[in-house]
């Protein structure tokens, strides 16, 4: 069995056992002490703290405290266990009260964004590898500017030599905005190549109106359009792989604050064991 498959099997088994343990221990606890939610509350408290600790591990990368990949495995499966423990904690119901409602939503947003994030990571990394050259995210805007400049040079050359209105009009109506910056974000995320296909078709249909020189220029433009689309693709996918963390991480801070308030409130108003 391949390494990653085996690891997944072990981790899933472990997570299921841990989830069972949560259910059993909370049932026993509730039956014995008749205090709903305290045990699962504290389990969640510990888990959320541990999950947030992953950020600290990422910052102190030079200390030998385990590989980040082992931490991420623990994080992902710990996160899933926390999600399950959360549902047990709230009794599989929608919590009432404004604070409780907001607090629960924050938790769910953090957890679901994590699930979405890991799925995005796994799928988009592969898709990125299959298409275009490898580019560093921060350099993409610079490359886009260069492509735009090249496109404009082609247009200028055409204006100077043939003065063709067809190419110019097409450029200003369709291409200048396309080259102006990242485009078609959503389309690339869902694997749609409609924008590129449309542009290519439009360029094909222009060809019959152009003289030989401008036809050659159109071919060059077509090449630039394809390169730009590749950059858009890389920008969209790499951007998405970064963007989800802007939900996951700041909301973690809100979650930690909320968790503190919630814990204090619950203990202040619990009135002790009944």
């Amino acid at each position, binding site marked *: 069995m391949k*390494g990653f498959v085996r690891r997944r099997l072990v981790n899933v088994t472990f997570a299921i056992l841990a989830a069972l343990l949560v259910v059993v221990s909370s049932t026993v606890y509730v039956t014995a002490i008749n205090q709903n939610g305290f045990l699962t509350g504290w389990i969640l408290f510990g888990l959320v703290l541990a999950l947030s600790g992953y950020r600290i591990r990422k910052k*102190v*990368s*030079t200390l030998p405290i385990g590989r980040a990949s082992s931490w*991420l495995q623990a994080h992902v499966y710990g996160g899933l266990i926390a999600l399950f423990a959360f549902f047990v904690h709230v009794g599989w119901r929608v919590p009432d009260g404004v604070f409780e409602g907001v607090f629960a939503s924050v938790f769910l947003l953090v957890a679901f964004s994590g699930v979405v994030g890991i799925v995005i*990571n796994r799928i988009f990394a592969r898709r990125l*590898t299959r298409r275009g050259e490898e580019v560093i995210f921060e350099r993409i805007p610079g490359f886009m500017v260069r492509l735009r400049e090249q496109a404009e040079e082609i247009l200028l050359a055409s204006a100077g030599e043939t003065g063709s209105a067809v190419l110019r009009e097409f450029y200003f109506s369709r291409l200048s905005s396309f080259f102006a910056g990242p485009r078609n974000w959503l389309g690339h995320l869902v694997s749609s190549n409609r924008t590129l296909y449309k542009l290519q078709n439009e360029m094909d249909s222009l060809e019959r109106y152009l003289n030989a020189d401008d036809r050659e220029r159109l071919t060059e433009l077509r090449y630039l359009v394809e390169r730009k689309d590749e950059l858009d693709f890389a920008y969209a996918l790499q951007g998405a*792989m970064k963007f989800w963390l802007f939900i996951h991480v700041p909301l973690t801070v809100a979650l930690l604050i909320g968790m503190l308030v919630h814990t204090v409130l619950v203990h202040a108003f619990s009135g002790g064991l009944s």
Partner: protein
Amino acid sequence: MAEAPQRSIRRPNRWDQPFGPDLTDADIERILAMAPFDGMDQSRFAPSATLRDIIRNDARLLSFESGDLIVRAGDHGTSTFFVMAGTVRVVLPPGLPNTLLGRAQPQQKTVWQSLAQVWSRPKLPEVRDIAKLDLKTATDTRVTQQGETRTRITDIDDICERYKTVTLGETEMFGEIAALTRAPRTSTIFAQGRVELLEIRRPGIRDIRNRVASFKEHIDGLYRQRSLEAHLRESWVFKHLDNEAMSRIVALTLFETYGNFDWQASFMRAAEGTPAERLEKEPVIAREGDYPDGLLMVRAGFARVSHEYDHGHKTTSYLGAGAVFGLEELLHNWRGEGEPVQLKNSLRAVGYSDILRVPTHVIEQYVLPTLPEHRAAGSIKPAVPQADSQASTADPATSDLAPEVVEFLVDNRYINGSQTMLINLDRCVRCDACSEACAVGHNNNPRFNRHGRRIQSLMVANACMHCLDPVCMLGCPTGAIHRVEGSGEVVVNDDTCIGCATCANNCPYDNIRMVEVRDAEGRFIFDEITGQPVVKSTKCDLCVDQIGGPACQRACPHDALARVDLSDTAALAKWMGR
């Protein structure tokens, strides 16, 4: 259609770039009149490469002042020296301390120092402690009128008293074994008083060795006596043999060199063209279908194992130092099971290879009858790579790697890497946690580029590979770039680096970056004498001073990045097949 105009170039010639400034006729006469050259029969040299031509183009005269270091133990060099005038001192083991050789022994950081790197890093890149750069140590460095950099040990009397040394005088030779075998220099040698040396680069020495029997005998004798047994014992095939068998084998082993010793210079040109053209350029060491006349062992350099496949050649594996070729065929023929077989694969020099050829009858007499049982198991299969250094003869680990991956690694000479940074792009989420971790460990300066050549989903990133054949170390004038004693990482001592960029220009993989350095306030630092900005050579040091080892690898949350020893193809195949 009009035919494209033919493009012609002038083919580079061997002596387009002489080794040093032109020697005068008087210099050459003087050299030829001295031992050992005076005793060489000049008629044995080809008219196109006479001894005189060799001296003129492959040699240079160097002068050293008292205390100047000539070679350092551990340096990699490809030339041999002859003492023309004066005497030199050879420091015997254990040798001089690293500080005297321009090197630094990395100090492991404490837990607290490791942690403090997170917040105490300078904001600007390449900040240095100016007090440390302004060197006042037991050595000093100067540039001669010819532009050569010399490092001088200031107190040689003290050195001679405290360390065991021997003296070499006029007409004596040193450095020949390291130059011929590309092994690190074994001793440090410095000038005692004014010294004039003749330095001959390896192609010249190789030609003289081929033409002058007494010279060949001398060098080969030294090599057999000092290194051959140890080299053979690097392979499991010979490891278990007793001393008597070993000394017979040592006496009968032939050594051969294929390819271009300065492969790094022509590497980019070699990488051009179609796979067939590239293969064509590689000298054949053994050809598929030929009679296996001996067991071949790679002593240094690399070799490609391939076999014919329809109209092309399929590269099935590559061999580095210590690996053997032809064992499976020899075993099969010796056992006499079925028809005798010829070589199933070809072996070609990649860049250059030094080969030890142990004749078949010697192998049959001493090695095959004593092979460990599990190694000798297995039978011959058609066209399988049978060469490997670790596994049994019939179970080559390399067969797990796709041929196109093997070809990519060979063609780009990545097989030289002992700590190559590989990134699995199917798993990499481009988060740059690796670069950030690297920056944390290096004063806010990432020491690699998360970019590089690709084959399928495998990327070889631009990070120092800590090569088996570290060509970057050739010619460093101050010894600043060196291997860490014991662990072997290639590192640059920032304090003694003079920014000459020899290492960066030598590195065929573009993994060394020259940077201008700043002081703590962010101002660029300038050289007092030249007024030029102070430049330093920088590269991945494999986090030698960090307690956890390479931070890049440990920081990758997605198991996408690893530092891999590419000579261990089994480990590579395992990593890729996870």
